[in-house]
């Protein structure tokens, strides 16, 4: 397979935007409740632990991919052969698709709960998928551009935290380290879903110019996500007490509600609308990567792969009916993601270390990326 031509590649620093925008998605709108369940007001420590652990994972992923100079599909093929490797790649693609579905469906759920209770899921799914299609069809450059614009458009939302800080109770944080280590680790597991998403780099890394230079940007992206989450958790924790937090499903969204400007109030409407630019890069990078993966695996045209995928996601999105099912979807995907990241990636890393000696580097290069 030929090397990707340079004019289709994107700059290494794009890894920063693509990693953060993939990580920050719907989770941040209401993740405070989940992590506070076990770790209480110390949950911010879990956010930091999670962020640092994910930095290790990013390092591992870069090691795995750079050793073979390929994407994950090439790695699978080299390590496990055509059939087992292909199956593993296929399963991974299914997981990635389910994360797209989760993000999409959860956002639709937020829209239905907060803005339009009577809006039919098929209509809004159709519109959002059409939007995603118009981006993905433009290729990785357009998708990456969306993540840059999405990043900058969502930055002003930080300013809204000011209104919550006006009514802050800073003593909510005391006493620090009041929870056991196992509590903190449980909360860390809970925070996983919110850091998920960067693993799509397994598929799009060959499209970054000088992949080795992009690694520091990916780490920075992850750190930015951690920083964002820390601020979010901090503001939510000083505004709500733990009791309240347990009954607040969308803590971040609720905080937008208290914004009060002379010409506008109830900012959650504007916030959710703006949040489209956070969700869209998620969906688009997902669709692009998975359709690219299918194209690599089965030699189907990427366009047809994309259309088929969109159709399947559309059907699945309609099949998820109510809040409970959205919740189940989130939990399950988060669990699978947890195992893939904390078990499968290290496993792959070790396997490659062992097998890598026998195979040598030459073989990896032969079936390089494409």
């Amino acid at each position, binding site marked *: 397979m030929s090397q990707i031509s340079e004019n289709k590649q994107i700059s290494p620093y794009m890894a920063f935007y693509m990693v953060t925008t993939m990580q920050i998605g719907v989770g941040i709108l209401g993740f405070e409740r989940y992590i506070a369940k076990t770790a209480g007001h110390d949950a911010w420590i879990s956010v930091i632990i999670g962020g640092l652990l994910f930095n290790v994972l990013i390092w591992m992923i870069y090691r795995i991919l750079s050793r073979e100079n390929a994407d994950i599909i090439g790695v699978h093929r080299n390590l496990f052969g055509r059939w087992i490797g292909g199956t593993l790649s296929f399963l991974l693609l299914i997981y990635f698709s389910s994360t797209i579905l989760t993000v999409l469906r959860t956002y639709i759920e937020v829209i239905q709960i907060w803005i339009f209770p009577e809006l039919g899921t098929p209509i809004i799914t159709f519109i959002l998928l059409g939007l995603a299609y118009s981006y993905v069809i433009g290729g990785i450059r357009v998708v990456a551009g969306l993540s840059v614009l999405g990043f900058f458009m969502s930055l002003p939302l930080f300013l809204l935290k000011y209104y919550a800080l006006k009514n802050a109770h800073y003593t909510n944080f005391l006493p620090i380290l009041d929870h056991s280590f196992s509590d903190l680790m449980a909360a860390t597991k809970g925070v996983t879903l919110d850091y998920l998403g960067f693993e799509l780099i397994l598929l799009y890394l060959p499209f970054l110019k000088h992949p080795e230079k992009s690694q520091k940007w990916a780490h920075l992206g992850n750190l930015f996500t951690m920083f964002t989450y820390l601020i979010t958790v901090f503001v939510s924790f000083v505004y709500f007490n733990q009791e309240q937090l347990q009954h607040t499903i969308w803590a971040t969204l609720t905080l937008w509600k208290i914004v009060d400007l002379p010409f506008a109030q109830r900012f959650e409407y504007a916030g959710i609308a703006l949040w489209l*630019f956070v969700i869209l890069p998620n969906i688009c990078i997902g669709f692009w990567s998975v359709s690219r993966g299918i194209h690599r695996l089965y030699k189907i045209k990427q366009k047809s792969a994309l259309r088929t995928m969109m159709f399947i996601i559309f059907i699945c999105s309609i099949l998820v009916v109510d809040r409970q099912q959205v919740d189940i979807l989130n939990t399950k995907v988060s669990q699978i993601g947890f195992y893939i990241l904390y078990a499968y990636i290290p496993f792959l890393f070790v396997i490659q270390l062992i097998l890598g000696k026998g195979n040598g580097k030459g073989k990896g290069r032969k079936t390089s990326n494409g």
Partner: protein
Amino acid sequence: MIFFKKKKKNQQQEAKSNSTKGTLTFPELMKKLTASADFSTVKQTSLSTFYISYYKTLVNPEFLHRDLLPYITEMPLKNLDDIQKHLPLDGMVKSNDVHDIANKVTEGFILIQMNKGDPEGLLVPSLSTENRQISIPETEFSVVGPKEAFVESLDTNLNLIRKRLPIPEFTVKEVRVGKLSKTRVAIIYIDGIADAENVNTAIQRVNDIEYDHVVDSSYINQMISDNENSPFPQLIDTERPDRVASVLSEGKVAIMADGSPHALTGPTTIVEFFSAFEDYFLNWTLASVFRLIRLMAVMFSVLSTPLYVAVLTFHYEMIPENLLATLVASRNDIPFPPILEAIVLELSIELLREAGARLPSKVGQTIGIVGGIVIGTAAVQAGLTSNVLLIIVALAALASFTTPVYQMSNTIRLLRFPFLIFAQFLGVLGVAICFAFIVSHLLKLTSLGRPYIAPLYPLRVNDLKDALIRMPFSVQNSRPSSVRPQDKAKMNKKRAKEKHDIED
């Protein structure tokens, strides 16, 4: 598709009929030419006999009688070579190619023959160009700065630019475009600064134009743009020679057509459409603030009515109590839903604008004022629209005029209608979705193959110094990297720094 194929076939046939012209003989040509009333052939019999043929309407009679005839009638001349030697003129061609003769004569050359049937003739250039005087720029008026605007003659226009860039690297490539109009199109760039790829793209696209007549540069603008269906203009259309000179020095390419008082420049980026050339004549702080105001105006112009419709239709909770009272009072006895109210008002403003643009300027102004005030007040008093919306719509219309490039302001005018429709269906979310669709379109758009929203994406921090704000000239030390100039530096940074010291 079938229609399209047919069209192609037709074109091929036409091309064929063109090539059969190759068998044209000289007598046939003369017959064709004399069929026209303004073509004349004069037999001169003084010391020697020869025939002079020309179009009376193309040739300057003063030139003919003062500069041509005296030289050839006062001497015995045997053949065309003799004539050529004795005429103190340049650009003369001796030709026996029928097509060459046909082309030259129709351009304004005088044909001199020794015998009437001779297939060989001497062609003397004598073009009389009727020009408009150079006048003040009208669409891109600036209070300070040069007040020259392009006119309809390509040579005059090139002169206006060349005197601003008196360097040998300033290069003009000329191409003829249009089967009937044979319009002279010039592609202008500075060699050594402009990227060769950009220049080649421009030349190739102009060369590829297949059309019978090209009257204005705006034809070319549409024909060579990267995406013909986009409402966004992809090349800047300017009437200011100073702007063209400064754009050329940034490493861009300009395209001009004979007969058009506008130049096209590219590759361009979307931010350039919102920068007036006057920005460079003002202090950078002022210019930056005005640029930001202009950007806000664009946002306001596009989004204000859609947001009004969205909020009043779906999210009236977003309006604070005090403001709500005002809005309720104003909308109390309006029988229409917000969307209908907004569309009717927007359309009537468009109507006024369109009427004003079609009428002579003095009448147009009156119509605008009378229509605006009378219709507006009457509509509010009749209880058909709320006065809050009237204010918003009027301000939005005003804001759309702040865009310095006329074609972009038309785009902005149009852009708010899809937003209105989305706002009616999905409220603020609809506005966001519509915006996302436009962003996706902009991300895919290119100008001469270069990204359209360049300093923003691909993010070029260095180019931001002259994008949303304009930094001082001391910071403007490099040309925009999005056009890939061959020579990146505008000035020697080191030398510039050395000159700035305390007490120096």
